[in-house]
């Protein structure tokens, strides 16, 4: 893949009129393998999937400022090598069924500060090679139960209630980790959504 875009070091795109000056073009490569087992019939059904995939980028240039990671391939921002998902449903009776969903993904790549130094009378931060580290892995377990109404044929409305809990383990899955430098002090932050189990109730009906 050619002409893949990525940022220069220090690039700031907000309200920038000369975007092209902040971007670099490079070569990309992506490869991987996918694996899926599915069971569709029976009271117990579901699937299990695993994907190994890589997506890498190379930004090499004769101009030192436009050279990232010494011109070697590095993981792209969306590189998630391992992706594992398990979905299963179990029908206990005609009216009660349970479902479970588990996903796991490698954390996405990130550039971390690795030290500091004094320059021009100020404290400066030295960062690692681009995307050398990864944010914590993502995993989540959801559980649910379906309760259906009676199955009389001549009903006006066929309905069921779904009670489920999203993120049962309460895993605090960061979707980004970033650093803020202000007044010579560096701080690390992570953002996450739903770091606590979220219960939901849904009522569905058909007519």
């Amino acid at each position, binding site marked *: 893949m050619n002409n893949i875009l990525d*940022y*220069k*070091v*220090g*690039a*700031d*795109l*907000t309200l920038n009129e000369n975007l092209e000056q902040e971007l670099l073009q490079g070569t990309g490569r992506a490869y991987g393998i996918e694996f899926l087992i599915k069971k569709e019939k029976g009271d117990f059904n579901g699937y299990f999937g695993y994907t190994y995939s890589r997506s890498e980028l190379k930004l090499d240039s004769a101009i*030192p*400022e436009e*050279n*990232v990671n*010494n011109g070697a391939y590095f993981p792209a921002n969306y590189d998630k090598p391992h992706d594992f998902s398990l979905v299963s449903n179990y029908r206990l009776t005609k009216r009660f069924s349970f479902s479970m969903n588990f996903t796991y993904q490698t954390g996405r790549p990130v*550039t*971390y*500060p*690795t*030290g*500091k*130094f*004094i*320059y*021009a*009378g*100020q*404290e*400066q*931060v*030295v*960062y*690692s*090679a*681009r995307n*050398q*580290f990864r944010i914590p892995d993502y995993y989540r377990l959801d559980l649910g139960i379906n309760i259906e109404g009676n199955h009389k044929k001549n009903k006006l409305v066929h309905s069921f209630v779904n009670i489920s809990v999203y993120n049962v383990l309460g895993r*605090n899955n960061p979707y980004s*980790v*970033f*650093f*803020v*430098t*202000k007044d*010579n002090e*560096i*701080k*690390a*932050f*992570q*953002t*996450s*959504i*739903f*770091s*606590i189990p*979220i219960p939901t109730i849904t009522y569905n009906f058909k007519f």
Partner: protein
Amino acid sequence: MKKIARFVFVLVSILIISSCRDEIPLDTFDYENYLVVEATLSNAFKQQEIKLSRTTQLDTSFANIENNAEVYVIADETTRYDFDQTKKEGVYLSNQSFSAEASSDYQLFINTENGRSYTSTVVRPSNAATITNFYAERTINADSIPGIQVLMDIEGGDTRFFRFEYEETYKIVSPFPSPVDFTIINYQEDRDEGISFDVDTIQNPRLEEERICYSTNYSTGFNLGTSGVLNQNRLLRQPIIFIPANDPKIQERYSVLGKVYTQNISSYTFYQNLDELSTNDDLLSQKQPGFIAGNMSSINGNSENVLGFFDVAIETEQRIYFNYSDFDFQEPPYFYDCNTIKLDYLDNTVLDRNPNQREEIYSLLISGKYNIYRRFNFGPQENTYILISDLCSDCTTFSSNEKPAFWKD
């Protein structure tokens, strides 16, 4: 309707509570120890300075100095200038004074104590810029603070990239000089009477030189400018420093030396990147972090990273003087609150529902941080002391009374 509103409110609250930005402990994930080179040779004829240090872990507070390195610069592949380490931390000074010239090539070589060798690319400085105007204006800054903005207009030579620095020097006059030197004598402690002491004073009318001090500060960080997109190679109204109207520095007389260094695209980009990553404070527009490569590299043939830049720049400088009254501002306050403390030696008890003033006089005087501004030896207020913080009576406590050679009153 009310129920729906409440439901929405609860839902939004849950979202806010559970979707969040948390500060996480900043561990040094994988500390890497790099050599840091900070060097700008200039055309000023002086002992040129090069600073060598090492990166430290994020959670340490001390600087890490590179000691005992062999440092030299080769000019035009012929002349060698050796640099020796000084007592000042991490600073190496050239053995002899010299000035960098715009038509010469310079290359820095460093052999560190641990047997590694580093070198810079060959650097040729650009021709000097001309300062066409260096001036100060009364203004209100972006934070709505009234004050004085110092600005510089320049005309470039053969480069369109510039770096600006300043050196500010200001005069300080101690507002409450103490007329006496004192010593505490006959100190006694008595179980019933408490403490007692005499204060022996010698009249010492302060000479003007003892009352007047001069402080100098140097700019930090990076102030960069480019005339890159303009037709003419001119840069107008480059901000150098802003001084708020109530800044004590302009109370007496203030002087600022503005400097402009010519840069090339590499040095300019290096400083710009460092600057951008050191002010990465906007949560909504994060800048791409990364390792900032300068023009230094390892000779040993490995890919060891070196931080920093060997810069050779031609500097042009100009000095101006002013104070608050030149801009019709009100006289700014002094650097410190100068409230005098009035204490009665005869009050040696706490039974009068205020502190034991005698003990207070003693502890303030013995602390070395207070001087006697006045003492009443007779009359109704006999034995009353008026004390003043030494920050207000003696400016040498935080400044220097050595007059700089360039200073013009």
